[in-house]
């Protein structure tokens, strides 16, 4: 019966009360959620590393004897009870002690910290490019469904997001670096080094932003207010960039934000590896090849924390742009 009460089809007004309606309480609530999420992430990694796998085996050299492995286990305190290990692990992680990288001979956190700005820079440049491609193209295409521009750009975007990102990177290297020699093949030599990896991101993720903005626009164009605006004699351009853009803005912002978070879910790391961009992806994959568990773990947690913050910002933007959404 309560379900009926809750789902009453009456117009929904922003509810105040227990949840609060302002941005301040919302920020606090989302921060709390973020911290809980981060704790979950760390717990999952602990479980992966200490329950599913045996860390002593990971730290030990490949040819280690059983006694050596046991000694390593004692050194790391792996013979202590589970809850003690869990507690000290959390204490270490949240005081910034991620262990020493065996490969780089320095704290793992330092290695990851050095790589983080490069990844952030690349992802931001890439996603801005993707948003520009996607939003302008999506609104233009969606405003005239079935037109030549719509069909052409539509097909291009579907193709763009069907292509493996790392393969697209290799293709761009072959064409622009090897064949024409316009941009460096890989590494980070000068400002032009960012062009190809960022372009790869912009093409792949721009394709998806385009698709979603386009369908949001198509849906929006069929709504009565567009007809009303048109019948009032507003020019097409004004209806498009005034009314429709504002009303799809919420969707668009969420899409771009979600896309940015998604980028951190994988694409950027493979692309970094292809272009030898000195970010977290390249670091992590090299660490994996060297079985450097501490760097791997630090990279996952730091990148995870970063994504949580990014999520939080996207969510706040979402509320700011459309405060009609009730804070739930």
């Amino acid at each position, binding site marked *: *019966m309560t*379900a*009926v009460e809750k*789902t009453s*089809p009456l117009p929904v007004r922003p509810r105040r009360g227990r949840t609060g309606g302002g941005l301040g309480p919302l920020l606090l609530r989302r921060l709390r*959620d973020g911290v809980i*999420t*981060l704790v*979950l*992430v760390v717990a*999952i*990694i602990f479980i*992966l*590393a200490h329950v*599913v796998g045996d860390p002593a085996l*990971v730290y030990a050299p490949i040819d280690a004897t059983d006694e050596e492995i046991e000694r390593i286990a004692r050194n790391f305190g792996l013979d202590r009870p589970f809850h003690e290990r869990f507690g000290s692990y959390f204490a270490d992680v949240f005081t910034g002690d991620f262990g020493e990288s065996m490969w780089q001979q320095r704290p793992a956190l330092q290695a990851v910290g050095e790589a983080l700005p490069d990844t952030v820079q690349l992802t931001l440049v890439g996603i801005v490019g993707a948003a520009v491609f996607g939003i302008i193209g999506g609104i233009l295409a969606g405003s*005239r*469904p*079935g*037109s030549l521009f719509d*069909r052409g750009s539509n097909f291009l975007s*579907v*193709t763009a997001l*069907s292509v*493996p*990102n*790392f*393969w697209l990177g*290799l*293709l761009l290297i*072959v064409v622009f670096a*090897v064949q024409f020699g316009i941009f460096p093949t890989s590494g980070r030599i000068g400002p032009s080094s960012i062009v190809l990896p960022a372009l790869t991101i912009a093409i792949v993720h721009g394709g998806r932003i385009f698709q979603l903005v386009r369908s949001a626009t198509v849906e929006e164009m069929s709504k*009565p207010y567009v*007809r009303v605006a*048109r*019948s009032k004699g507003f020019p097409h351009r004004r209806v498009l960039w005034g009314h429709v853009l504002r009303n799809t803005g919420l969707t668009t912002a969420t899409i771009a934000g979600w896309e940015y978070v*998604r980028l*951190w*879910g*994988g*694409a950027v*790391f*493979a692309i970094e590896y292809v272009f030898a961009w000195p970010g*977290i*992806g390249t670091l*992590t*994959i090299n660490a*994996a*090849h060297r*079985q450097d*568990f501490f760097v*791997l*773990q630090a*990279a*996952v947690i730091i*990148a*995870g924390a970063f*994504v*949580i913050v990014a*999520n939080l910002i996207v969510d706040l933007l979402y509320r700011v742009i459309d405060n009609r959404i009730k804070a739930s």
Partner: protein
Amino acid sequence: MPVNVVDTDRSASRLRAPLTAVNRRLSTIAAGRAWWGFAAFLALMAAWAIAPDFFAPYDAERLDPRNRLLGPFSDSTLGSHWAGTDSLGIDLFSQMVQGARLTFYIAIVATLLGTGIGVTLGMLAGYFGGFWDRLIMRLGEAQTAMPMFLVAILLLSLLGPSVTILIIVLPTLVWPIFARVVRAETLQIKQATYIEAAVATGCSTPAVLGRHVLPNVVPRILVLFVVEIGHVMLAEAGLSFLGVGVQPPDITWGLLIADGRPLLTVAWWLTILPGVLLSITVLSLNILSRRFEQYAGAAA
């Protein structure tokens, strides 16, 4: 007043009618033709996956060092190699045919698992709201906040790379998307009068979810499912490319791209052709899903 509103609405739709009809016809023709071509391509790929030995012209494990790194459309003593040969002289086309099975197998199984988890949790979250909603969505968020490539690398260096681990890791990539979409749909659907009516007439909650909510989200799920098979395929290719996914002697298209990478400047076809095949497959899945979307839209 109400009469006025209806009137405006009618005249507006009358004005729009011819334009919409033309547009619809154009897009139907374009999509209709494309759809058949891509569906046929997918059918061919499925045939490759089911009976690779029938389609592969040569043994994909047979070395022929004298005929290594032959370009596309060249001939050897064995016959023609329209996709060229690799650094050991193995026919690339045969390898691509052999790679279809594992590529499709991993993608479909992993996506099915992810869909099942995502749809169930999304419906529960959307329908019940409150605690379950927050718990499930935060789990999804935690999942999304874990850069899955890095987690996969972490997992695989702990457990050793294998197809089984891949099939466990890949669904975690897709379930939050299904959960989000289904939750949003469920939130809308549960405000509908027919849900209210169902609850009022004494429908049990599983019945409401299974009979009234689920059928209404199925079109969205179907569209998403086909798209996500492609995404999972791309993810598997990425992981295999980075050396933490499928391991030789198994073959997937992603692994073929990885194998060709060191020879990129010498033998471009080893990297480019498997990538083209993978791209067209994912493109076909995307086109097909848009076709479903149109049908779903027409039905609604």
